[in-house]
């Protein structure tokens, strides 16, 4: 199995997974026409490290929480995102949990998706590791078949280390 390491993540990637680690850079984009101004506005999204992994082809451009990828999940596919937050947030109660959680069937709900996709479901957990706060966000392609997919996700997450 291949080990992927960058920006505080070290992931042993099981066969069949596409994975990518990136550190987004702050960008400016032109204001939308509705703002009726020529000023540039900050581009949305985090500038902290992000890890994406999926059982489908990982598109070249993916939103922080899987936009552009989760729409293509099949019934037995999954998308996993580990999104970093600013270091100061580790002191808050939201990130009080230490270490990656283990995914369970009951954690997944159709409503727990950034953008609800019919048939799919997701789960979101906040934790800290190596003194940095993270969000774990997982989407499975078919809620009814999640029991066949979650073990694969847990296998992937067992191979994740924070450096």
């Amino acid at each position, binding site marked *: 199995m*291949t080990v*992927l*390491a*960058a*920006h505080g993540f070290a992931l042993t*990637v099981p*066969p*069949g*997974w*596409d*994975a*990518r*680690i*990136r*550190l987004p*850079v702050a960008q400016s984009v032109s204001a939308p026409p509705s703002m009726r101004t020529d000023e540039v506005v900050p581009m949305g999204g985090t500038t902290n490290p992000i890890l994406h992994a999926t*059982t*489908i*082809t*990982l*598109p*070249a*451009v993916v939103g922080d929480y899987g936009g552009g990828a989760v729409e293509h999940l099949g019934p037995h596919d999954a998308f996993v995102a580990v999104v970093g937050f600013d270091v100061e947030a580790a002191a808050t109660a939201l990130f009080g949990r230490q270490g990656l959680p283990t995914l369970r069937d009951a954690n997944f709900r159709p409503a727990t998706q950034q953008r609800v996709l019919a048939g799919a479901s997701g789960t979101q957990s906040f934790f800290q590791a190596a003194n940095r706060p993270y969000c774990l966000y997982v989407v499975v392609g078919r809620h009814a078949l999640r029991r066949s997919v979650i073990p694969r996700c847990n296998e992937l997450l067992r191979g994740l280390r924070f450096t």
Partner: protein
Amino acid sequence: MTLIVGTLVIIVALLSVLVVGLLRSHAEIVRALHDLGVNLDPDAPDGTFRATASEPGAIRRPMVSDVGPASTVDGVLAPTSGRLVVAHDLAGATPDGGAAVVSMSGRPGLTLVAFLSTGCGTCADFWSAFRTAPTIGGSPVRLIIVTHSPAAESPSSVAELAPENGLVVMSDEAFDDHGVAAAPYFVLVDGADASVIGEGSAAGWVQLKALLQRAAADAGWAADRRSRRDLLNAGARRRQVDHALAEAGIFPGDPSLTPEQ
């Protein structure tokens, strides 16, 4: 009684036509093999290849390992020795400072792995061509560009040349795993099982696309889909062609395969 006899006469006539056709086809095959230097007669004199080469004193068929490196025109890399059967997963750095792993199996459709460099002149045409999503036979292809690692390639130069929505992996290991000695080099992969459909190089995208389309068609890929029948026919056809060429003593790299030289 007359009707039965008449029917039998017609059937015998049809069978005769069929037998004559088969004999004619067989004769054409034998003639074609003879033209290629193969003589099926075990008592044939030396100087021609025999169908059974295991006899003492028989002319040994050249093996792949006997064939020297193929020569190509300037700027085009010769095919690698040996045959790449299965593509390897790609892992390495990305031009933006991240890292990526790309699985080559379990992905529907075709995957084109393009080994490129920022410094070679021949690669420039491909960097430019890949700004538009490539298609083969009218079907979209998953494109993965591979360059050498950041130790040998400038990530900023790669990022400047890379397609806006293209996936680039910077990995020396990928070059080694696929036996790629230099860029540009291309490997076309069946995403279902990571099997390699074709590999090689070309002087430009137009030429490469034609070669890829031919390789995809030979492997049973139709424009939009492939059926089981397509697959089976293509596999059988490929085996037949390989077998006929091997029987004729023609192996990869044989000069007769590049008549322009």
